């Protein structure tokens, strides 16, 4: 037990400077609502934590596993819909809906994982993309889930911990809590047996197989865990926006944003998702808000595209790659 706790909370294998950064980050995030009054800055912070949380989950299969999954939004959708429909139809308390969302996302991923992991590399990426798009269209089609009309959750006038509705300071701590839970889970995971096996097969699948690692089995488990982690964030989205539809929780853009966040930050590093989300989300949201009034169509996406190209071409390990190189040299 204490070994498990140690694995979860210990960053002993990381350099001292990283531990300091983690403490600083936690302190800043915990005091953020008291430091910053701007509502938009708080909304940006919540979005940052949400996307970083999605990135953490995706990093498991995409970073540690090296399997580029372009369909994570479908799992976000499963979580969001499980929460929304259960609250709406049966007034189920929020925390009971989360495991249901995780269950369905994991189940679906398990069902499609075996055929999909017969594919490698780009083939796998396109397959995940197609499956996610098919699910989105099915949710638009399906009347019981509200179809394209989406699902609306009633607004509760006072803070409510059963259905997790409150002001944005509340949402800030809520998402920060979820984020830290997944962050610590990932900290445990990267040092676990499964984590090592996954990294081994990423680096060389044949060598890993010859060492007796069950390649497909490991990938399938990783894929299912990733799905469950994504569904958790989806549940948060439902109570945060109080309205969901397939375009909000299951779009291709979200799948790509999640994967891109990790790639920009640094895939396969525990810090990658945080760094990526910190680089992309504020840039996107402030640039978009600042340019929108001016009548320039699309200039924010142009800059966005340019940055992505530069990182992909010159720093494929992402921003974390730069940091690592600089610190090692110094």
């Amino acid at each position, binding site marked *: 037990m204490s070994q498990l706790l140690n694995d979860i909370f210990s960053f002993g294998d990381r350099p001292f400077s990283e531990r300091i950064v983690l403490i600083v980050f936690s302190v800043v995030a915990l005091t953020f609502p008291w430091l910053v009054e701007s*509502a*938009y*800055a708080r*909304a940006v912070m919540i979005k940052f934590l949400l996307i970083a949380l999605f990135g953490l989950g995706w990093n498991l299969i995409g970073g540690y596993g090296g399997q580029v999954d372009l369909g994570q939004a479908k799992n976000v959708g499963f979580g969001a819909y499980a929460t929304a429909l259960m609250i709406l139809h049966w007034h189920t308390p929020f925390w009971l809906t989360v495991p249901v969302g995780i269950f369905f996302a994991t189940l679906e991923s398990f069902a499609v994982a075996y055929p999909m992991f017969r594919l490698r590399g780009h083939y796998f990426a396109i397959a995940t993309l197609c499956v996610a798009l098919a699910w989105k269209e099915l949710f638009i089609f399906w009347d019981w889930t509200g179809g394209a009309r989406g699902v*609306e959750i009633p607004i509760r006038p006072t803070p409510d911990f059963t259905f997790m509705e409150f002001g944005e300071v509340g949402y800030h701590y809520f998402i920060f809590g979820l984020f830290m839970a997944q962050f610590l889970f990932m900290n445990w995971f990267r040092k676990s047996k499964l984590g090592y096996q996954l990294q081994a097969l990423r680096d060389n699948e044949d060598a890993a197989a010859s060492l007796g690692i069950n390649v497909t089995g490991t990938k399938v488990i990783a894929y299912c865990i990733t799905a469950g982690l994504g569904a958790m964030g989806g549940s948060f989205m439902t109570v945060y926006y*109080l*309205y969901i539809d397939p375009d*909000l929780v299951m779009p291709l853009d979200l799948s790509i944003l999640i994967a891109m966040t990790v790639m920009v930050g640094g895939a396969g590093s525990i810090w990658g998702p945080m760094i990526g989300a910190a680089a992309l989300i504020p840039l996107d949201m402030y640039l978009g808000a600042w340019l929108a*009034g001016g009548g320039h169509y699309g200039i924010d996406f142009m800059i966005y595209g340019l940055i992505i190209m530069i990182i992909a071409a010159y720093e494929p390990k992402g921003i974390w790659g730069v940091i690592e190189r600089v610190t090692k040299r110094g």
Partner: protein
Amino acid sequence: MRGKRLMVWLVSVAVAVVIASPAMAAEPKEIKLGYILPLSGPLAPTGKALREGAELAADIINNKYPGLKLSIAQWEGIPNLGGAKIKLIFADHRGDPGWGADQAKRLIRDEKVIGLAGCYNSSVTKTASVEAERAGIPFVNGDSTSPALTKRGFKWFWRVTPHETWFTADLFNFLDGLTKGKAPGVKAIPKEQIDKLAVAVENTEWGAAALAAIQEFAAKHEYKIVEWFKYPHTAADLSSEARRMMASGANSYLFASYLADSILFIKTLKELGATPRLIWGQDAGFVEPDFPKTLGAAVNGILTRDLFSPELGKVKPVTIPLNELYKKRAGYDFHGSSARNFVGVQVWAHALNEAKSTDPAAIRKALNEMNLPADELLMPWKGVRFGSPFPGDTQQNEIGSGVINQLQGFPGGKSQVVYPFEFATADFVHPFPGWK
């Protein structure tokens, strides 16, 4: 020591007074209104037209336009607020409900707007109005038509435009009128020539709502829906769908499509040589300036469910100078959606003037008591008064109405009002002339 502490106190009090005094001033010189629109992405052209409409209204409120017969043209700011100017602060929602909510937060609490307007896409209006409801500030929506929006019982949400239920009711009243010979320029049309309907809607929130309303009213008015389907929004090809409508033997085709799909549908029907007697497009794509601009003569004879036509000037003189002012800014005529955004800002101005304050409660009272007469509006409405026109509606303008236009004489043509029959600006062309 004591003197020093006293000094500190005095200085802090002085600083506090200096900081606080502008906030305490009773008359704001500028009233900030948040305006959320789709200004980038595929809906950007629409967003631009809406923005121009809203900006024109703000300009007329803030400056003197002696020739215009509207009360806001004489105001130069909000009279009961010491001539304070309206300042619109635009935000882009990209068609994404999540972005809409975040922008609403920014406008409400960072920009300190006194109220919100927008957002065109019903799904974005849903999330953005949740933020307004939570913050307790008024949201006056001028242009989202999903019936669900005013059925949520929100305290801080008002809708100026009529919603889908109306428009569909209008359509069937219009069809009934045709069979009774009420349309100018044509004799009574036998009901069996127009009573078989084929309905194509996109599979979005809005399309689904439009379809449900059509099914309900068709049953009530005894029209037969011989074919209906939803199709994927932005399709690559609609040949099979168009063929299915033609094969159904329907004589009236009804559509709910955004611009890209409406263009593709009409092109495909033309290519396949369809011969319906009547084509009716539900707002959106069919009323965009790009629709006739793109398709030219192929659009002649198509009916559009709209709220406005520049031709209304013939029966409603105030729209002529307004449309000219708009055209000078935007380069094209007012259309239903941009005109509604004009009215949306106008409603805001009247509400502020009646409230005599920017306090949300006072604005809320003014909105609920508002009774804006018809001659203040460029729309062919009886006015603006919030109530419950259909079961379940709250704070919905109950005396608005839609129009049905017919596109005539393109390229270079006009969209002529044919319904309500008393507002008709040209003779009705029937049957649909085909693809000449």
